[in-house]
């Protein structure tokens, strides 16, 4: 099976502190892969190392079959990697329309993909002339994802899309992930809400102390007692999770 994103033995960190240790993972086209782990496990740093915001110390990152290790972000965007950064990092003073246009900065003709984005997030179409900073949190997250899609990515890295959003809005946003799967985009999803992430993902990796300590199908991970105990909340939640699995 051809892979969209292959990470092999990647290590990265800040100063002398190694935060990501020899991580290997892969994401296939049209696959949603969740990356789980508690605070400080190295998830965000791993995403940054993949997309060139942090220089990797060792290991390789490949997109398709091309080695792109340590290439700068603007190069990676042109190779089809899109990052939806934690905290969204929208251009708040610019209009929704300008934000989308900037998402397509690396390409010349964004009309078609713009239509696709607006069909995924119809609410944005009614807000094109509005400043991004005046959108609600959920709309901002939609715009952040929309902006990333404008670069026509093969691989999308999503960092904490549910952060600070109401559950109903989160559900809408995660439904879009299922549409992206149909578009053949490989999605690597970092999410605090492991239960939610595994509901929408095909597979998952669990990080601890900068290493991948577990991997498997989303279903296996959800039924794994260790994962539940550590990331899916209390045993009280376990029963709910069991009920979910059976339904």
């Amino acid at each position, binding site marked *: 099976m051809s892979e969209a994103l292959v990470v092999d033995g990647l290590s990265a960190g800040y100063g002398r502190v190694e935060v990501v240790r020899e991580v290997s993972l892969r994401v296939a086209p049209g696959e949603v892969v969740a990356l789980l782990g508690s605070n400080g496990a190295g998830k965000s740093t791993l995403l940054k190392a993949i997309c060139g915001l942090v220089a990797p110390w060792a290991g390789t990152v490949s997109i398709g079959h091309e080695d792109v290790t340590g290439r700068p972000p603007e190069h990676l965007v042109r190779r089809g990697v*899109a990052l939806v950064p934690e905290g969204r990092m929208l251009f708040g003073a610019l209009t929704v329309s300008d934000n989308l*246009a900037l998402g397509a900065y690396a390409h010349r003709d964004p009309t078609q993909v713009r239509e696709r984005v607006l069909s995924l997030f119809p609410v944005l179409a009614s*807000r094109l*002339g509005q400043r991004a900073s005046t959108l609600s949190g959920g709309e901002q997250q939609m715009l952040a994802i929309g902006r990333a899609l404008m670069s026509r990515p093969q691989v999308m890295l999503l960092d904490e899309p549910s952060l600070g959003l109401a559950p109903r809005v989160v559900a809408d946003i995660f439904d879009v992930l299922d549409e992206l799967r149909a578009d053949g985009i490989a999605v690597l999803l970092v999410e605090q809400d492991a239960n939610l992430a595994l509901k929408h993902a095909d597979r998952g990796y669990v990080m601890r102390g900068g290493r991948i300590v577990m991997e498997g199908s989303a279903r296996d991970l959800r039924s794994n007692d260790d994962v539940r105990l550590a990331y899916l909340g209390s045993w009280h939640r376990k029963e709910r999770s069991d009920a979910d699995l059976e339904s």
Partner: protein
Amino acid sequence: MRRRLNEAIVFVAGVAMLAVPAVVTDRYVLKVLTFVGLNTIVVIGLALLFGYAGQVSLGHAAFFGIGAYTSARLVMSFGLPWVLSVVGAAVVAALAGWAVAVPGLRLRGHYLAMATLGFNEIMSVAFVEARPVTGGNDGLGGVPFPSFGSFELKTPSALFVLVWAVALLVWLAARNIVRSRPGRAMRALHCTEPGALASGVDVAAVKVRVFALSAGLAGLAGALFAHSVGFISPSSFGLDLSVLLVAAVVLGGRESLSGPIVAMAVLTLLQYLGALLPGLPRQAAEAIQDWVPDIVGATLIAVLIARARGGAPVRAKEALGRGAR
């Protein structure tokens, strides 16, 4: 629509400026208005750098000076034709801007302001101390008038038209930049650098390019200044000019060209008020002249308290979000 209207007004005003010498014959007034035109060129460059890309520079007077001395020297010592020397001066100033911007990439905000301020001070000392090149504190006199071949522009009205024609061209070019892809990239990195990076904007390259462009425009204005005035000395390129330029961009507003241009025109004219308003009593004129820095500072503070975005009108459509553009 409002934006179109705004731009139409600026354009008409710009073209109308070219016709001013047909009406105004007072040599002094023409000279003052020529200074306004020169400052317009510099402030457009700073509006691109600071107002659009969000990179502050307290060193633009230095680039203005570099342009002035370079062009004067190229004509006087190397006998270059005037046009080539002005272009050369703009290029040298742009290279100086590039040299400041590359190490400046590690800095932002207050630290970039400090670094460019330091650069301005260094160049101020250099202009004084590099006597063989700059003439030191005595200045450099006898800078020839602009000329095309044997045709020399030496009347105040000819110099006025030259400077304002260049200013108009610079404004048109700047307007094209801010409306197209590079302008969008500049506004993007002003908003959030990580966001700009995530969208594939080469933040470092955009910063360096806009800094070099901005410094080059200051150098271009400096060269025109040297040849229009004929005499240059370090006092013209001090920190007070740099501060005035930054004040004009702040007053004129973020992401605006016309705002800073108008603000700079007002700030420039304030210093010559006595001569421009014949009815003004001499004492009042002198008082205003003495208090110009204070007036500028107080206005700046008042504007920042009232409207952090500066004086440029916020487009109602964007604030309310009615319909697409």
